[in-house]
């Protein structure tokens, strides 16, 4: 569920705006998320969805938007219905 992604972003993303006001494609870094906060987002997503991001995904662009995160989770095998 995108709701779960947004919940993680709300807790760890250090966004400067309410996450509910962002579209799936809005740039999270423009919305205030720091590169370092994106690492916490990544680790919290791993816990939430019981996955491990691959080495190739360990770059800030993987976490640049809700849709980018959803795509990355789908690549890791998280079912679309769960994302």
């Amino acid at each position: 569920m995108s709701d779960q992604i947004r919940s993680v972003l709300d807790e760890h993303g250090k966004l400067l705006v309410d996450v509910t006001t962002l579209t799936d494609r809005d740039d999270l870094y423009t919305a205030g998320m720091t590169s370092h906060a994106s690492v916490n987002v990544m680790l919290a997503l791993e816990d939430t969805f019981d996955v491990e991001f691959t080495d190739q995904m360990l770059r800030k662009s993987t976490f640049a938007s809700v849709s980018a995160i959803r795509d990355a989770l789908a690549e890791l095998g998280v079912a679309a219905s769960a994302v």
Partner: protein
Amino acid sequence: MNAALGIHVGTDIESIADVAASLDRWGERYARRLFTDDEIADCGLTPSAAPRLTARFAAKEAVIKLLAPGDRPADAVPRWRSIEVRTAPNGAPSMILHDEAADQAAERGIHELSVSLAHAAGIGTATVVALAQTEQGRA
């Protein structure tokens, strides 16, 4: 073709408290996603390592800025672990680039990087300067 030297600069600033909080919450799992084995060996993973790790994370971000990935596809942004700070026995830091970070630096004619790290008053910061060989007249 004539060649000239150009200078690229990247700088970044990070919160030590943020890194300390992440170390406390996620531990080694957090550190291994950002830092190389050598960086972890240099700094350790105890709470007292947070200032040094913060400055190293700032150095990675400074290099990402320096390589100006804004004009590249999003998936070309280098991974944090492809950018490494090494520490000489005398404490002097230097930058080592691996994989895509090294490739991107080579594409830009960058053949030398110099880094300065600092941490105090709750922040870690790094400035990286690169010398790049460019076609003359092209900045």
